[in-house]
């Protein structure tokens, strides 16, 4: 699910950047460092705006300045039970690896409808029900997240397509 979240970040700046364009520099730094980051709990999708760029404080002893920036960002936190669209990255006899944006989701063989079977002899290998449903590398899938596990700088998730309206798009 997506949220608009207010966060703060402390950026320390080398004295060589002090000057009239310090504001732009801070904004660039913030965008670079935050956008696309995974905290382990959520993904930062986009920094929307700066609520407040605080006054810089020079750190005694180093000369660098610290800016505390309050900003709003769109974040995405995947939840169990959420339905997302994903792209297949590889298919294996044990299941399907997909990417839903930044989130890697694995669909185990048990969570694939039983009529969609593993077909290793095609190139590339695929899951197919020998009708209109073919899942191979690059296919778009709609899946439901069964479980989410935060890691240090990544999130792993388990998905299923064994429900109505799920499966290849």
């Amino acid at each position: 699910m997506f949220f608009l979240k207010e966060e703060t970040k402390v950026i320390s700046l080398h004295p060589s950047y002090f000057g009239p364009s310090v504001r732009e520099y801070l904004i660039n730094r913030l965008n670079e460092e935050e956008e696309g980051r995974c905290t382990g709990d959520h993904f930062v999708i986009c920094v929307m705006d700066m609520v407040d760029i605080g006054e810089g404080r020079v750190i005694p002893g180093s000369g660098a300045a610290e800016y505390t920036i309050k900003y709003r960002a769109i974040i995405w936190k995947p939840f169990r039970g959420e339905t997302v669209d994903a792209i297949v990255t590889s298919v294996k006899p044990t299941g399907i690896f997909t990417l839903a944006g930044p989130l890697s989701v694995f669909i185990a063989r048990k969570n694939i409808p039983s009529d969609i079977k593993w077909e290793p002899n095609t190139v590339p290998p695929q899951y197919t029900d020998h009708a209109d449903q073919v899942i191979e590398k690059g296919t778009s899938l709609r899946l439901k997240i069964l479980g989410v596990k935060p890691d240090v700088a990544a999130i792993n998730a388990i998905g299923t397509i064994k429900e109505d309206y799920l499966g290849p798009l």
Partner: protein
Amino acid sequence: MFLRLPASLHYPITVTSLLKQPGDPVQRDEALFWYVYQTIVTEGDGLGNKVEVKRSFPTKFESTVDGEIVRWNVTKGDVIDEPVDVVEIDEPCAHEVQFGGLCAECGKDMTEATYNTEVMDSMRAPIKMVHDNTTLTVSEREATRVEEDAKRRLLASRKLSLVVDLDQTIIHATVDPTVGEWMEDKDNPNHQYLNDVRAFQLVDDGPGMRGCWYYIKLRPGLQQFLENVAKIYELHIYTMGTRAYAQSIANIVDPDRTLFGDRILSRDESGSLTAKNLQRLFPVDTKMVVIIDDRGDVWRWNPNLIKVSPYDFFVGIGDINSSFLPKKQELENPNKPIAAKAAAAAAATDNTPPEHHVNGTTIKPELGGISALEQLVTMGGGDNPRLLQEQATAQEETIMHQVEDRPLLQKQKELDAEDEAADRPDSSQSVDESQDLSRQHRHHLLEDNDRELYLLQERLQQVHRNFYEEYDRKRSRSLGGRVAALRGEKTQVKEKDVDLKLVPDVKDVMPQIKRQVLGGVVMVFSGVLPLGTDMQNADISLWAKSFGAVLAPKITSRTTHLVAGRNRTAKVREATRYLKIKIVTTQWLVDSLTQWKRLDETPYLLPVHPDDRGEPISPDSKEAAESAWLSTTDDETKEFWTEDEGEGMSESTNEIFKSTGLTEVSPIGYDADQQAAVHEELKEFLGSDDESESETEAPGSEQQQPPVTPSKKRKRGDTDEEGDEEDQDQDQDIVEEKDQLSTVPTGGEGGEKTSDAHASAGGGSRLAQRIRRSYERSTSLKEVATASSSSPGRTTTTITTPSSAMDVTDTPTPDDGDGGGGGDDEERPDPGAASVTYPEDEDDELEREMLAALEDGDYDEMAEGKIAAENG
């Protein structure tokens, strides 16, 4: 599943009541039954006294899994003495497939641990099964299921699995930017060989080498090879390169992914940086797997392995991804185009005595000496993170060095320099013209004449054929039996299982083929491996043994082949006495191993120097028996002392006992001449760690020095440049070898040399005088030989000449037991023919060292002068 009691309970325990009945659902950590246990506790009695009393405590046992009770194995009142299965619980999900710490089927967190956790749920699925992902793990059962499916599929399409290594097996990669320049430069002599070299850039391949360009040369015939082999094998890539590297290579060799698909395993997923493990890809069984790799050691000589000869297109680059691997035991490949060409060129221009160049092979004892210990250390250190870090840095450095140092450019420069040097003397043209000329026929460094893949394809086809022949045979036999027994459709259901049981094992099929190749060959190595190498476990030995050859430490009547790394060793001499022993070069062995054929030995026969021909002994004579069983002859004794190529210690002691015992009592073949030799040998042995060696080699080398150097120079002048390069190579090697040696012998040698100088100058230290006196006393015969070999008639020289010249003087009276000792040297008819007598390998080391010192004129003089100054 059955719930087993943990070992940590206070046994015996008594079950007092069962809380759940069959059919009841249970949650994790929910109580299943009450029990009572007894233990001794310390109690206070209220008066300050402490008493130990035995008490019973009631406790409940809690479930460690979710599910539904199926059946109790215990009833109320049971006394349990040891861990047993108490209850069967039907789990809704056995968590057999896990992804990043989650059960991939039910989505539960597998890393949760509570007070009640005996074994983490994540341990239920320990096997990494997927090539390109390490977060997915499966249980053994699931792995078996998947693998069986795969096997059935392979059997149905009559294929096998083939694990393919990349570096130096099917491609050769370098980061040397010189390659890019040569590809641009149409005038470069190497240009035409680089036509099909592909390049790619890896942007994020670790820090320090961002955007490094990789140049990839496909092994000749690769495309054809892969296409043909893919028809009968399912191909997998297993490389020690990074993921990105492997992907890029796959893009080159298999752009539409029809051959490899995404069956690519790189070191990022391998789990070990020092060894390759077939279980990583085929966790359950490897019956249908064949491996091709240029390194046997990383697979620990897995029986599924077909070792291929390494592809070395970019000369001197090696494997760019091998920093993590244990060092390679480099057996010098004499088939290298440069060496072969050099040999041919040298033979043409220099009218070298033919015995040095056999079949384009230079007889050059050159081996990268890597001790087994060092290997073990590298192998064992695989898990140490600090070591890994170091190795990662080392790898980075290798890459950086290659980018900066441009080894190829250096080599080509050398080659060009040789060219020019060769041109100059015989062309009286102006400098400009001669440069133009030399540019026209500048020699190219790179050669593209590798044929390995064609041979490899045949071998793979052969293995495949044999495998399926065996399978068909088994299958038809069992089908017939079953049809008779059962009849009807029932068999159809079972057929699948039966199929799998009938699958023959590549581990049986392949060795069968291989063992026929060198079956019945009993070989002895001489001058093949460096001293101190564990002969039975060296790469070449293991390789040969996998082909059925038997490796013996010494020559007996059973020996069929003597594989000689160089000519004129004591073993060669001995082998000549047995008519049936074929004395062949190392190349014979290597070629036979790579071609899976017992090649005809004739082109590989080592030309034996006439002097070395011992008196033939017929296999059934008394002497043969003696030499085989009792080793009484001097030859044997001598060999025992000198050629210690891996004889076991216990065997040695035994030998000593035998030989000493017999020399005292037995009169056979033990005349005065030989007695002197034995004494000398003994003396040499006893005094080997002080100055004793100088007595044999010192004055000779002093006398030899003048003739050697000019002859060498003369050769430089008129040889083809490649001969010279060869020379330089060798020199370099010698220097390297010298570096490898500990400083002690080097220093000792220097000292000796100094003393020689003094001795010959008439002055000198007391030590030197003593040495000289002992020399005169013990090897007066030598001087005759020295005189003859340093006579002016000596015009033709070869690469090995300096060492041979020294040999003459260094040799401590080599006697063949029956052919009169030093007489050998005396009667040598052709002094120019490299009279290489390698009496012992230790001497060889020293010789090479000294040779290096001689070559390096400046250094030598300086060093000598310095030492002389020190000695006064």
